[in-house]
């Protein structure tokens, strides 16, 4: 595949905290982590999805001004950012594994329309829906 979405990012309140969450708890891998002064380009990758990177970006100067950064951080902390969906083979098993690692689940696994889904948040407030792939 030569065309497609390569990077999409979420805003996080702290890059190191987000890195620890996505890597140590969710099992993602670091793809790129480059710093240049206050700027940091940090992306992680799902181990089974080599063509896509999830960016973990802290809003702030120089890319956005301080007041805008504050507003963005508030929006994230209020859970106002767009939905994120993680597909898994077995939602209940993934829930048990991630909950044991201290992931903050906001909805326990629920059977719905022949699938199972649960919800969790990252430390910043980004909300993930974890959906079991239909078989």
């Amino acid at each position: 595949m030569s065309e497609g979405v390569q990077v999409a990012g979420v805003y996080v309140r702290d890059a190191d905290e987000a890195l620890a969450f996505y890597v140590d708890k969710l099992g993602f891998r670091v793809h790129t982590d480059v710093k240049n002064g206050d700027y940091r380009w940090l992306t992680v990758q799902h181990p089974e999805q080599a063509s896509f990177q999830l960016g973990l970006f802290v809003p702030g100067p120089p890319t956005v001004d301080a007041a805008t950064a504050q507003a963005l951080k508030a929006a994230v902390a209020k859970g106002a950012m767009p939905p994120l969906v993680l597909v898994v083979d077995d939602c209940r098993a993934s829930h048990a594994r991630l909950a044991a690692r201290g992931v903050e689940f906001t909805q326990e696994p629920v059977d719905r329309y022949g699938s199972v889904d649960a919800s969790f948040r990252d430390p910043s407030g980004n909300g993930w829906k974890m959906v079991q792939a239909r078989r």
Partner: protein
Amino acid sequence: MSRGSDAQDPALLRRLLRARDRIDAASHEQWPVARLARVSGVSPAHFARSFHRAFGAPPHRYLLTRRIEKATALLRDTELSITEIAFEAGWSSLGTFGRTFRDVTGQTPSALRLRAQAEADSLGRVPPCFLAAGRRPDLASAVSEKRRRASLATTSSSSDSREQR
């Protein structure tokens, strides 16, 4: 809110979100402010004020939107009786459920059920939870206020100018 233009601390907002998540996870339960405040780790008075400012509605009204959303989903997707749905969604009286539901949505539970079943299936590709969230009532004012306006509108159309805010 008129409490100054200074922004709310994201760390506080994150803790308020945790309380809102708890409402979302169990909207059929009772959520007095003291219980929610404990989730967020702030005093009840501070919680009520901060929650309203953060999310645009006081906690009890937010809870109501989630209960209406749940009742709507059950009306749409299950064969449960309206009485069963009232209790599943968190109401302790069928009469209060029917009245509140009509005040908020503008239709009775049974009318909504008929309409929902008629328009079913066209939205099958959107994850159900997001679909439900998109149908959540937008309660910018209190239900009592909405009810008052509706009754004023039917009794006197000249009162419109007084009702503007």
